[in-house]
């Protein structure tokens, strides 16, 4: 029997291209440093090339196979959609980074190398098909971002990175322990046969159950869900703003991809994990929104808000607690929410990044009257906030919230729907307070935006705005990414 894995590069092309671009960015900076922006442009080019390859890879199927057993890397519809979202989000982050790397004097080669290494992991993650690869790839996403947070090397960056690192290793340790328990009680790690294994109720044991719940930890850390949420606000605040945007969107996409893979694998025992996730989702929504209420800094507010938003995305999975009815549309609802969340959240981060060029601490006070002095930026930010709040005219946010809410409502988990309703109402308070601040007339206070050199950030905000408006006018584009 041939035990050497065959590697079909064409299937893995998007991952390989991103990884190669990461290396190129580093090398160009080392040897051919003609212009400071070359690494960034190479990163952008790499991501776009990977995006072009996506549809081709979709035809190709699987690779890294053990003959007559299983493949570690497999591509299907949901894989491609998640990979597409990861790449789209990364493009916006790289665009935002172009000027920030200059402004903060960050080492360009290292910055884009670390960023794209993480992206390569995030692109690979939705295609992984065994628990070991899944956890290893998840760490590939996480570790470079810890370095990215620390890259600024100032007083805020070090503790921010340290806090993230501590949460990361704790959750990793918990998950590895879970992996050991699952492997010990089932004797397998590939998702396909674990799926079959857990569909036999006779195989359900305490060891297996504890293992499954513990494995969730590493994914819950990535999406910053309760109880692994406390690192997010400090880390986001200490990181360069594009990195904070990356952590809140792309890194979370990877976390949700992992969560989807894990829960689908153990779908034979859904009452177990859906109960845990229901409690996690409810607490995450409440804690995130309550935490955001008291913030005075834009980035911290967005950090808490992104905790809350992750709670909303968890709701469809958690809704199974009410019964398996309607579970077909569960993933479709999550992916729709993630697509809209990508546009509205990165859009908000892009505008914050623009304002923070002149007001580095980006307090909410620094946004007072923004819409009068810079109508385009102000109106865009107001629209992103309306989408995040889920209120007209932010129809994109409204429709995905309704779509997500439909899951617990149709499964009968009414209490979860009520918690989400309450959380959304709390969320209105701080999103709207911020939006109203943009339109306040403040005499003597001048918000200045320096657009010079920041074409990347402006483009990121513009692309996010276009996406948010398109999703508002035609919500079916997001809702139809996966068939419900």
């Amino acid at each position: 029997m041939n035990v050497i894995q065959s590697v079909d590069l064409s299937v893995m092309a998007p991952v390989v291209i991103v990884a190669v671009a990461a290396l190129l960015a580093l090398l160009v900076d080392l040897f051919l440093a003609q212009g400071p922006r070359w690494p960034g442009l190479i990163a952008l080019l790499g991501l776009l090339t990977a995006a072009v390859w996506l549809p081709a890879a979709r035809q190709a199927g699987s690779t890294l196979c053990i003959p007559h057993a299983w493949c570690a890397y497999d591509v299907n519809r949901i894989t491609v959609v998640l990979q597409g979202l990861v790449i789209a989000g990364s493009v916006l982050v790289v665009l935002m980074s172009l000027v920030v790397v200059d402004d903060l004097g960050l080492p360009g080669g290292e910055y884009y190398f670390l960023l794209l290494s993480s992206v390569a992991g995030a692109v690979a993650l939705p295609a992984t098909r065994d628990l070991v690869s899944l956890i290893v790839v998840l760490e590939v996403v996480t570790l470079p971002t810890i370095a990215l947070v620390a890259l600024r090397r100032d007083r805020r960056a070090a503790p921010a990175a340290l806090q993230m690192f501590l949460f990361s290793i704790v959750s990793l340790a918990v998950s590895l322990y879970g992996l050991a328990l699952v492997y010990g009680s089932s004797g397998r790690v590939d998702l396909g046969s674990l799926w079959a294994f857990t569909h036999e109720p006779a195989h359900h044991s305490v060891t297996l159950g504890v293992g499954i719940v513990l494995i969730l930890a590493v994914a819950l850390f990535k999406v910053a869900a309760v109880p692994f949420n406390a690192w997010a606000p400090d880390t986001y605040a200490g990181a360069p703003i594009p990195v904070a945007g990356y952590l809140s969107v792309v890194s979370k996409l990877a976390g949700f991809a992992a969560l989807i893979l894990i829960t689908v694998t153990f779908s034979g025992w859904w009452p177990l994990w859906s109960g845990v996730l229901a409690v996690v989702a409810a607490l995450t929504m409440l804690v995130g929104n309550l935490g955001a209420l008291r913030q005075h800094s834009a980035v911290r507010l967005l950090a808490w808000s992104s905790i809350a938003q992750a709670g909303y995305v968890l709701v469809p999975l958690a809704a199974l607690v009410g019964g398996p009815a309607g579970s077909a549309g569960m993933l479709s609802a999550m992916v729709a929410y993630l697509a809209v969340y990508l546009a509205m959240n990165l859009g908000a981060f892009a505008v914050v990044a623009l304002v923070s060029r002149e007001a580095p601490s980006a307090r909410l006070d620094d946004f007072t009257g923004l819409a009068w002095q810079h109508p385009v930026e102000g109106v865009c930010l107001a629209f992103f906030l309306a989408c995040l709040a889920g209120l007209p005219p932010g129809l994109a946010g409204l429709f995905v919230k309704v779509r997500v809410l439909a899951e617990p409502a149709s499964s009968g988990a009414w209490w979860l729907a009520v918690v989400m309703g309450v959380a959304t109402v709390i969320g209105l308070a701080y999103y709207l307070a911020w939006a109203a601040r943009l339109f306040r007339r403040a005499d003597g206070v001048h918000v200045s935006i320096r657009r010079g050199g920041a074409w990347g950030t402006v483009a990121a905000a513009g692309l996010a705005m276009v996406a948010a408006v398109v999703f508002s006018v035609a919500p079916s584009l997001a809702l139809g990414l996966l068939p419900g």
Partner: protein
Amino acid sequence: MAGSWVLPTMLALPLAASVLLLVAGRGADRWARGIGVAVTGVDLALGVRLALGFDAGNAGELHARFTAPWVPQLDITLSLGVDGLSLPLVVLTALLSFLCAIYTVNHLPDPGRPRAFVGLLLFLQVGMLGTFLAQNLLLFFVFFEFVLIPMWFLIAVWGSGDRRRPAANVFILYTLTGSVLMLIGFLVLWWQAGTSDFSALAAGGGASMSSSTQLLVVLLVGGGLAVKVPMWPLHTWLPDAHTAAPTVASVLLAGVLLKMGTYGLVRIMLPSVPQGTHDVAPYLAALAVVGVVYGALASFGQRDLKRLIAFSSVGHMGFVLLGIATLVPIGVNGAMFGNVAHGLITGLLFFVVGGLRLRFGTTSLTELPRALYARTPRLAFLLAFAAMASLGLPGLAGFWGEFLSLVGAYLPASSELTLFRILLVVAALGTVFAAAYFLRVLRRVGQGDRPAPRVADLAGYEAASWLPLAALVLLFGLAPALLLDLTAPVVNHLLAAAVGAGR
């Protein structure tokens, strides 16, 4: 896509104009007011054409239907239509918007910016019209929310006084909280009934829902709509918002926005969850009558004319709610009549008070100079006329809504006969108070013999924007059947479905 293009045009036109004005450069400032008049004029013409071509014998049917797919995954269609219940409100909205646009040509409140002001006015119009035209729950919700943002800007930016921004914030927070409750109620209703289409909901009559689910829906949906009406004790946002709002915003707030709440109650809550509505009807009636008395007594204590009218609105909307709570055709028809009448009368009142403010710089009853009859006879006549109509003088439009609501309360559908009759007596006393406070205003402002400097009487643009309202108040006062014949078939249909399923 199918159906008549009239209704989508009525929405698309102001929406397109509004977006163009809001993104246009400063050069558009010169044209803005003209565009406003033209667009609202076309909308009014379309509305009038709709009304003239309306098959009154078939008022219960949806006319000028338009449907297009929008979000197939959520089963949401762009579904518009108009029947006897919504037609008067659609025309009222188009009329008030047009009159406001005319008024704005000559009078734009500080800080100017005609482009933004007219753009927001048109944006507001889209939301108001859409609310009355929407034929399913989510579309209704979207349009219902659409009005909040332009109204917030109109109050917060163009309002008067230091309190305008807090007033705008309180307005938006109150109504948003109500809206979110309403949305949750809509979702419960939608998933329990399996449809979000209004006619299907009415046909279902809540048959698939247990009485506790119905009660939940009524509390959520009714609670959310009651904030907008506003029902006592959820009214506290209204006086501040009215006091701070510029004249046209006050006119539209009182004339149209409040009606969105009562319209929603009759269009959605009553037919969809008849059992639940039936269960809460006595409580609704009691709160309504508290509102009537409270509105009257509070009006009595006001020193500011705009605040006074705002509190009187609470009282008038109390009558409308009482009429709805009776759940009998005569009461609900009275309520729908009262809706339109209050829109016309209060619109007129706010216009006139805005005129006073323009001339004397204040709306405070203690600071306004006396002897208005002598100084500006035409303006004073309009104020007196609107006040008389508001206090329910027979022969003017204000009378019929309250009278029919009271008649309905004599023989309500509810078995709580004694309660309703006590409420009837108390509400009737409320009309006496209303007479008292308006007569006090007229005596204070109108009479007197102090010599005073000359002030301009009714200007041409004022006459053009106010007199149509006065004429309609008189017309509907003398010929109430014009309206009642339109609403009656729909109300009978909705109530019949409710009675059939609810008992």
